[in-house]
């Protein structure tokens, strides 16, 4: 599997660290309540198909990247910087 870093270009998967689903970008307010925090920390849609997850180009530029990826075929259809995903 190869991942396209928006800054460095297409690189070997071994240069990247996997964090988990992109739900990590939607941090709830501290007082959002038990359900919101359960959704954020623990619960996962966990689709068999297209998903969005977070990777860091730790062996390269260090950027955090949102990757749109298929969990069945491992095909990657889009990558963008987390700073763009959040804006």
């Amino acid at each position: 599997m190869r991942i396209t870093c928006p800054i460095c270009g297409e690189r070997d998967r071994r240069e990247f660290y996997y964090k988990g689903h992109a739900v990590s970008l939607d941090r709830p307010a501290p007082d959002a309540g038990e359900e919101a925090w359960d959704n954020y920390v623990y619960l996962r849609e966990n689709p068999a198909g297209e998903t969005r997850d977070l990777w860091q180009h730790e062996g390269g530029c260090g950027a955090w990247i949102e990757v749109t990826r298929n969990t069945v075929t491992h095909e990657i259809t889009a990558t963008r910087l987390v700073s763009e995903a959040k804006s």
Partner: protein
Amino acid sequence: MRFSGLRVLKEGLTGNKGWKPHWRDPEPKAEYDIVIIGGGGHGLATAYYLAKEHGLTNIAVLEKGYIGGGNVGRNTTIIRANYFLQGNSEFYSHSLKLWEGLEEDLNYNVMHSQRGIINLFHSDGQRDARARQGNMMLSQGDDAILLGRDELRGMLPYLDFDNGRFPIYGGLYHPRGGTARHDAVAWGFARGADQRGVDLLQNCEVTGIDIESGKVKGVQTSRGPIRAKKVAMVVAGRSSQVAAMAGMTLPIESHVLQAFVTEGLKPVIDNVVTFGMGHFYISQSDKGGLVFGGDLDYYASYAARGNLPTAEHVMEAGMALMPMIGKAKMLRSWGGIMDMSPDGSPIIDRTHIDGLYLNCGWNYGGFKAVPGSGNVFAHLIATDRYHENATRYQLDRFRTGRGIIDEESKGSQHNLH
């Protein structure tokens, strides 16, 4: 049909014409008392113990593929009871005791082999941690022996004791640990359940779960609708998809774990050896193949195959630990889909839907749990009370933060357990 030495002899002398299929292939009935979704090891064991210990036999096990074709046939067959935390400790101890009586109980040769497991350590700090783990295993009533370098060298002379990065200081030896033939475990439980009247429905994929007014009514399947008073989901690897049919989102992320086997060799590795620092473990099957594996590929995946960087890493770790295996030719590799939970421990619980039960989140440790999981899950389904050895596997421990069972204090990121 009972198996015995005499029977094998008789069949051998009469052309092996008397053997019968080990279970029936029934048509689905319109209604059952209990429907178990998932004909893997855990689902079959659940059906078996429901019938054997609770006298409940109006049960169907629904399997979308064939018996033995899922994760129960895709693991590395290791059995152990070396957990540390309360919750896991008593559960895996219970499961190991069931393993020890399993072949007589099932009248089936599952090739259970208590060849012992050795967890290596490589520093003074790791020795202390293993000693502490061993004490916990002793206190739960199981066995553990702390081996020093010289004792270990006598047992496993082929290890690279003076490895530059991870010199071997010794190992924690768990003599009652070992392996079993995983296919035979599935077949044995299937046969045992079938003999007691349980219907095993293969090629029967669940496509929907019927719920009315907060109570489960049955399931929709590729072989037609089936009504049921109780429905149990035991589908580790596909838990999120099946639970979604009941409107539930689970604290599970699916990951692929690879395993490898070499060509058959003469006996060379007598025990199960784990090299945690290299993410590598190995045993030798009775057929002679070296069976080994490593860690997850580390990204969410439903592909039942792995990626090459992980394969390369596992091979490197194996070569670092035991250079002798470098001459062996690798025969094949495969991947299994793991339900990774946020604390590395499983979930065995009721759900918020009346009559709907959940068994999932086995991470990469489901095989050794097969008898224990089936036994305690059957108890929960039959009595609606937790079994005394599985009181802490509640689903709501994540939402409430009460009773998290995180063996290695790795936090909530699913793939780190």
